[in-house]
């Protein structure tokens, strides 16, 4: 395990903690961005589906534990999203920030739909369409708006770690 992996795990943990532990900091009008999802899509676009799936796995475990839901709920949604966007990343030109934001928006909608479908399967009395429009779409917009900042921050961190890994004594 090189320093890049360690930094990756730490970043996943920090953003997951930020997502679950301090939602009031990020909340606007009751809507919060999904930092875990932004991370998953970032790793799917720049590091492929495998890294994205493991990011989804770690972030999902943490979110399941933090939100006290059945184990696998967040994990499944994030892993599916990460896998799909990881596969798509090879076929998309995603250098422009607007494309990235749009991808995150799409990923957030997909994630929200999957999440609410699972909720609906567990509790059929839930109004699925209403929840998607009231909660998922605004959250997806907010996540899309946060995307350039989060992506820039992650790029800065991993640029430094990539540089450091390239010149480490093991190389």
């Amino acid at each position, binding site marked *: 395990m090189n320093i890049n992996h360690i930094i990756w795990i730490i970043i996943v943990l920090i953003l997951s903690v930020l997502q679950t532990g301090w939602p009031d900091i990020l909340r606007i009008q009751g809507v919060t961005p999904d930092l875990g999802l932004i991370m998953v899509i970032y790793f799917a676009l720049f590091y492929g589906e*495998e890294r994205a*799936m493991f990011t989804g*796995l770690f972030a999902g475990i943490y979110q399941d534990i933090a939100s006290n839901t059945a*184990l*696998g*709920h967040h994990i*499944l949604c994030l*892993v599916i999203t990460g896998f799909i966007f990881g596969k798509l990343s090879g076929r998309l030109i995603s250098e422009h920030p607007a494309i990235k934001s749009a991808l995150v928006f799409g990923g957030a909608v997909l994630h929200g739909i999957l999440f609410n479908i699972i909720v609906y399967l567990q509790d059929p009395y839930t109004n699925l369409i209403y929840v998607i429009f009231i909660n998922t779409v605004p959250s997806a917009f907010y996540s899309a708006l946060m995307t350039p900042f989060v992506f820039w921050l992650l790029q800065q961190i991993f640029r430094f770690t990539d540089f450091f890994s390239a010149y480490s004594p093991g190389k």
Partner: protein
Amino acid sequence: MNTLDTSKAYRSTIIFVVICLLCIISLLRETPSTPIRNFLKQGIYLTTHPLISIKAQTGKFLDYVVAVFFETDYLKNENQTLKEDILRLRLALIEKGERNYQLEKKLKMATLPEEWKSLKLLQANVLETYQGALRIDRGSRDGVSVSQPVVVPEGVVGIIIETSLFSSVVATLHHRECRIGAMIQRERLRPYDGVIYPSGDLRKICTMNYIDIYDKVRVGDYVVTSSESTFPPGLPIGIIQAIHESGTLWKSADITPIVDPYKLDCVFIILDKIDPLNIADFDNAHISEGKIYNEKTESQTPIQELLAP
């Protein structure tokens, strides 16, 4: 393409399928995340405990350093305030103790022996003590005269030997001029001269001389006032400490006075002259454990016999 290459090509798909299957199984079984959360929580507690302890200790140390170096004035003021508080409390304690002593003294004075209630008593405070004498704050203006007996509830103190307008001098049993008519309570035995007087040495004891060699006197017998004295008969004077036989027809006894005059703050002067007709009643008084009891029995003894030495 062999199996290894196939697995490498589809590795991400396999991982995806495995994770998805596990998640679906977990969701179907509704596996709670609480055990993992508890496990992580315990791990976090264990990991962070040393850090939290170090943080607490460091905080205490920094507070101590700040207090030592930057709050010396506060500590000095606090110390001064505490000292003042201690002094005030000590003074209050002394005052309480003195008040308690005064109350105890008043209580003792209020519980006078039954026989004394018919007597006319005058309370006097002791002003000073010197060479076995007491100076009291009552004088001839208050009706005090020479030879009047002075007592306390425990027993005899002495007799008045000098009076002035506002004060008087009491010769106690330690004073060389004190003579008190006495008898031994148990056998109602009187010595030949009928008095006891101070030994004159520093042992603070009195002497009773001229006791007949055949009289039964024991160490520990109570010596009380006799009918010939100016005191009411039966008042405790002292206890026989030693008996000396000189080889003649007489023997003598050393007597330790019951009352220590140097510890007195307040005494009573008996202003009444003792009526010989009441002597029979007083004569029946006896002492037990330092207290006076009076058996009001109808004595058939003639008054001459009662007064005889």
